[in-house]
């Protein structure tokens, strides 16, 4: 049995251990039980690699459950900065008896398993490298408290993996101090666990795998943040004053982060709040409050995910038709229905574009990085008020809840844009006011806020038919004129929405279009395509609906365009087909990933090459 010789790694000769080292390019997966307190350990491990100067990301693959079900945390370190999910795992830390067997069998040959030695995993196969560690037993050396022992067993594997990979102890210690900031006892206990893990590894494990960390300088000055916190910061620095929400995974942490930041930074000189954050009774109320607040002149927002978007549909139609600004964050998850609440997908885009009954078109902002979660969320508030319409910010679970590296955020140099709001003085000067008149020819009307002290200020807001002066009307011409103006307003939005990011290549005939979190996987795939197959690509990343002129021009430059999406039905492609000229539509192909796991570069490369082979006969 393996326990008889715990010192020796078990390894098949041909299976693994090529003599060449693999430096700063690996994925670690920690398999634990939900609720076991492993998150701190995982973050410490990730952050200590980050502190070694190596680009890194951390993804939590978790169940919809409080405690007891399996959960996996994946850390990807990559010297070139490719930190999208990678399918292959190089180092598995198997702490969960329930999944250990399957996790080990899923590994590619030559990979590494660090595991609780009571699990007897080394019998499963002979072509991977096993490092058994008696975690439970080692934890008894630290404390007799059984609850603490469980938590500290997690930190032990950080010590073991750190030592195996050559992560500097001082960086692990620094990461621990950050993680348990201000909690002296916790810092001490965890450092002790790290030291025991390191000592055990030095004394009992002979390293024969090739994966290693070496210090580099690619993370100096960088930050690590999740997209939801970045969106929250964008909202705070946009000056949001009313945020109303209903808890739903994976968006809850957006408003919770916002509350944390606002408590710290948003008080007047008397210590009173310059904001209101309200947990509503459901998503209907959440969006209704944000609409009421937007109508009354606040910068307002709500945050939700797919099921909440479905519920908000009627209200969003009202805000579109009555022209009320607000920002709605949709942190998408896997649908339809409850779907996979803790997995990622981009399957709401078609709903968002057209949400609500009747003819409706919405502005959707699509950040692809945590930096854009900040800057484009901030911009969304400007657009909502300038355009007087609901603006969606569509992020997803992968971007929203996982940890990403970025350059520190910068405040925009442009001041806030609050749109066309008439004050009492403006009204006195103008001498007339019609709420839905197109005075400036851009189809954006002027509005007044309740409480404006002028007899001309009041108007009646309604979701029923209205004329240019907001009077109730069922007249055909009033209805058509108003709907046509709303359509023209959407065209005005084309010149204001964030333009796509285009990576052009004059020699490439194949084009890629993607959006949101697919970005980092697409970037890596483009390198694979060129390096491994000699296929050069142009790449356009959409950052908003409505589409801007760049999209049409981009497709025109390509022979074929692969629209890469994380949904089954090629939803973005459908939206493109609704608008593009027919000669462009014929060029569109799709690469679709919708398993609930974040898209990875290898998937895109394989799919695209297979498709290209068919194209080229």
């Amino acid at each position: 049995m393996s326990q008889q010789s715990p010192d020796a790694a078990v390894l098949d000769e041909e299976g693994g251990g090529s003599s060449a080292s693999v430096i700063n390019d690996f994925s670690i997966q920690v398999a634990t039980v939900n609720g076991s307190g492993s998150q701190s350990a995982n973050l410490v491990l990730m952050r200590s690699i980050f502190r070694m100067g190596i680009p890194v990301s951390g993804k939590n693959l978790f169940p919809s459950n409080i405690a007891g079900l399996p959960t996996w945390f994946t850390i990807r370190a990559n010297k070139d900065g490719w930190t999208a999910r990678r399918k292959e795992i190089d180092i598995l830390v198997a702490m969960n008896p329930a999944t250990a067997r399957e996790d080990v069998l899923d590994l590619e040959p030559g990979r590494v398993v660090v595991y609780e030695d009571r699990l007897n995993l080394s019998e499963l196969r002979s072509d991977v490298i096993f490092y058994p560690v008696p975690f439970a037993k080692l934890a008894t050396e630290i404390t007799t408290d059984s609850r603490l022992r469980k938590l500290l067993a997690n930190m032990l594997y950080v010590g073991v993996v750190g030592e195996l990979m050559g992560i500097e102890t001082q960086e692990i210690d620094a990461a621990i101090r950050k993680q348990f900031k201000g909690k002296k006892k916790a810092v001490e206990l965890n450092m002790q666990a790290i030291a025991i893990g390191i000592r055990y590894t030095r004394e009992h494990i002979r390293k024969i795998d090739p994966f290693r960390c070496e210090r580099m300088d690619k993370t100096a000055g960088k930050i690590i943040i999740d997209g939801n916190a970045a969106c929250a910061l964008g909202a705070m620095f946009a000056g949001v004053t009313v945020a109303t929400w209903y808890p739903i995974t994976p968006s809850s942490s957006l408003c919770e982060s916002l509350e944390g930041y606002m408590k710290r930074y948003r008080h007047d000189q008397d210590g009173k709040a310059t904001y209101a954050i309200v947990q509503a009774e459901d998503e209907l109320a959440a969006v209704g409050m944000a609409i009421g607040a937007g109508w009354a002149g606040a910068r307002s927002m709500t945050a939700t995910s797919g099921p909440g978007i479905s519920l908000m549909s009627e209200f969003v139609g009202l805000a579109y038709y009555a022209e009320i600004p607000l920002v709605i964050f949709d942190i998408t998850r896997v649908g339809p229905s409850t779907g996979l609440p803790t997995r990622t997908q981009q399957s709401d885009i078609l709903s968002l574009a057209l949400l609500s009954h009747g003819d409706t078109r919405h502005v959707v902002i699509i950040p692809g990085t945590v930096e854009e979660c900040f800057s484009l969320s901030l911009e969304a508030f400007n657009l909502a008020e300038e355009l007087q319409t609901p603006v969606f910010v569509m992020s997803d679970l992968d971007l929203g809840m996982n940890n990403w590296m970025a350059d520190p955020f910068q405040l925009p140099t442009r001041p806030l844009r609050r749109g066309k709001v008439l004050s009492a003085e403006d009204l006195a000067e103008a001498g007339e006011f019609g709420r839905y008149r197109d005075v400036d020819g851009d189809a954006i009307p002027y509005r007044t806020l309740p409480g404006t002290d002028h007899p001309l200020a009041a108007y009646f807001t309604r979701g029923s038919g209205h004329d240019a002066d907001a009077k109730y009307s069922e007249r055909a011409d009033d209805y058509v004129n108003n709907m046509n103006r709303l359509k023209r307003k959407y065209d005005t939005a084309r010149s204001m929405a964030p333009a796509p990011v285009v990576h052009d290549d004059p020699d490439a005939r194949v084009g890629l279009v993607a959006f949101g979190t697919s970005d980092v996987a697409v970037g890596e795939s483009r390198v694979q395509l060129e390096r491994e197959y000699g296929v050069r690509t142009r790449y356009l990343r959409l950052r908003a609906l409505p589409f801007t002129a760049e999209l049409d021009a981009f497709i025109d430059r390509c022979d074929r365009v692969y629209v890469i999406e994380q949904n089954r039905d090629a939803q973005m492609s459908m939206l493109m087909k609704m608008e593009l000229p027919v000669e462009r539509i014929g060029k569109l192909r799709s690469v679709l990933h919708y398993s609930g796991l974040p898209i990875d570069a290898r998937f895109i490369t394989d799919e695209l090459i297979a498709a290209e082979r068919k194209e080229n006969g």
Partner: protein
Amino acid sequence: MSTTTTPPRTNRLGLGIGEYKGGDSTLCAGCGHDAITSQLIRAFWEYGVEPQRVAKLSGIGCSSKTPAYFLRQSHGFNSVHGRMPAVGTGAMLANRDLVAVGISGDGDSASIGLGQFCHLLRRNVPMIYIIENNGVYGLTKGQFSATADYGSKSKGGALNDLPAIDVCALALEMGCNFVARSFAGDPKQLVALIKAAISHRGTVLLDVVSPCVTFNNHEGSTKSYPFAKQHEELLHEISYVPFFEQIEVDYEEGSVVDVEMHDGSRVRLRKTERDYDPTDKAAALAMLMRTNHDEELLTGLIYINEGQPDFLASLDLCETPLARLGSEAVVPGESALHEVMESLT
């Protein structure tokens, strides 16, 4: 022929009652809702509320059309069915200086909007919430609503086989601090209650039985004019003494109860044959249960608990309405961003 012109009467702001009117009603002639609209106009005029400070809110239904018929100088918002409480809550979060008047109906509040109605009350959002209660869906031609009494008869002759939701009892359960019921055919009581409502801080629930002359005014209806007139049971005679008009009238010892409102106004309750204490919530619930059982239409100030903090107080909001804060007040500086970024390295 001689013409005599009497100068129009004005309120304390110098405004005539015409300044408080709205557009022409498009409801059926004789609709109870129009009577309520008239008393709203009168109450707001008599109190002297600045029309520009008022936000009128409604959902969907006959009742929800009425904000177009009063206070034309106030912003109005006719929102979606049953969801006006959320819109009103948001508006009050944005601008705490507004006086919010929500007009709803029994379908809007007791069926599709029951959840939002309950949570509005529970939060104690500052708003005068009036339910124009006729027990029937008028705009869709006469279906029973959830406040229709058990055993009452529809225009088509069907008997209602479900119990009624008593919105006043529900409001008490939800923690509402001002619960009253009135009848569209009792203008004196109604106008006093609306003025008292303006003086209250927090949610006011005013349930007004408002007969639907087209679909629910027949024999067998318990929300008809004849039924209400016959069965109305006054808890007390109500009068209202505004803070700017301290008129002293001597009453017989023990015959009146004065309730001091937070703005200094007083609601004067003159006893009828019953001895009723509107500050006793348990007694209020018991009274509603008994009178519902006896098929009496109990009207008056059912419950009042002055001086409770409203929702905005619990949020510790700044004095300036959030909607009026400039960028300098709502955008933390460069140093704040720098501090956050430092914590993430």
